């Protein structure tokens, strides 16, 4: 497998805490990859109207870039990038007429026929590394940390691009491999409020409140995420959400890759816990996962 890494816009700016630990962990685990030297925005959302082919051009161009760099597989970490690229790839593979139209529109590019496989980082960990090998690589097990796994929408729906069947519980397997305890979390596959937090903040906050309430009821110490939009709604805005809704309490949020980096014993600075706010750092210091001076 020749693995390319597609970062996407947000990981290079506001979600450095999602990216840095992820890539350092791949290096640590001996997974070879090549970051794509050129890429563009994936489009963030997959076009749902059948005549809107122009918005398939952006994700398909990224897959062409991966193919041109000799990659047969491209890995993404952001859930939305994963969903958009995987669905566009499926469209190219399944719909001959649309594939031809796209190839004719991009006639300066080589034809693309779905040759590249799109995978999410979690699938890569499970299928290429494996939970057993990951467990063996953990030098700083997250003992006694109860973690609510938040999949959100775009990792698991629609079914044709889901990284995981419901009963396989990929995030729960990941959490257990790090030595932590997965919480029984009823909102694991619910919507965080998505882009409605921008368009309709009150309704977005009400939705986020339901997810945070479920995390509280699961008695989790921490909530883990794989998407910068989920992080904004459930992490950055959490103080406002909790203040506006009775009966909620705060729960520290982390990207799943930060837990991975800490459990593998990587330099805590790489994990960029400073971007998660003080509660996330304090919990890890309290649990002795990191030293107080390192954050």
């Amino acid at each position: 497998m020749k693995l390319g890494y597609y970062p996407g816009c947000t990981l290079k700016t506001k979600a450095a805490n999602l990216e840095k630990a992820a890539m350092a962990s791949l290096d640590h685990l001996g997974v070879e990859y090549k970051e794509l030297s050129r890429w563009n925005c994936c489009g963030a959302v997959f076009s749902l109207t059948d005549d809107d082919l122009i918005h398939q051009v952006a994700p398909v161009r990224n897959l062409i870039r991966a193919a041109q760099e000799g990659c047969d597989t491209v890995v993404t970490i952001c859930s939305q990038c994963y969903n958009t690229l995987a669905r566009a790839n499926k469209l190219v593979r399944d719909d001959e007429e649309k594939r031809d139209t796209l190839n004719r529109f991009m006639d300066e590019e080589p034809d693309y026929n779905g040759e590249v496989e799109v995978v999410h980082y979690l699938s890569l960990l499970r299928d290429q590394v494996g939970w057993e090998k990951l467990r063996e690589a953990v030098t700083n097990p997250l003992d006694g940390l109860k973690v609510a796994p938040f999949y959100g929408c775009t990792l698991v729906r629609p079914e044709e691009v889901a990284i995981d069947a419901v009963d396989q519980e990929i995030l729960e397997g990941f959490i257990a491999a790090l030595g932590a305890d997965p919480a029984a979390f009823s909102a694991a596959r619910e919507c965080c409020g998505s882009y409605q937090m921008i368009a309709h903040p009150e309704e977005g906050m009400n939705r986020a409140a339901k997810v945070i309430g479920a995390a509280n009821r699961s008695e989790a110490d921490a909530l883990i995420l794989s998407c910068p939009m989920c992080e904004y709604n459930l992490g950055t805005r959490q103080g406002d959400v909790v203040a506006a809704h009775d009966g909620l309490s705060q729960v520290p949020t982390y990207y799943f890759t930060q837990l991975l980096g800490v459990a593998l014993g990587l330099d805590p600075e790489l994990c960029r816990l400073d971007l998660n706010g003080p509660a996330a750092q304090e919990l890890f210091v309290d649990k002795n996962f990191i030293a107080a001076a390192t954050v």
Partner: protein
Amino acid sequence: MASIPSPIHPENLKAVNKIAELSGQNVHECMQCGTCSAVCPMVESMGFTTRMGIHYLQFGEIEPVIKAQIGEYCASCHTCVVRCPRGIDVPKVFEAVRQLVLRTNTDLIKPQEIPKDTMAEAPQIAFVSTFRKLTS
């Protein structure tokens, strides 16, 4: 054989056919069980339920669906797609309604009114998603 009169008013036929063309979905396959509304995370914000939205569309009534802001509030979470016993891609149906509005050069949000702290804090994918979904 006697033909059954269509319940769709001739004036509405063009828009109904456009919804079918854009979404690739046949709303007449819906049996009105309401599962989509039961699982919808945004239904409380809509003027009426997604089930009612599909029912209006079955009769060719699009204006009430636009007024109920169903397409506007749909977060495309796809929970209803997983649950629909008739296999209807419900977000595609309401995306088509949303597109019919956007394609008349209508914006459903005003980007210039987004607060400065939101602009500073929210991730790029949130803005790209919002503008893709709610501006023309």
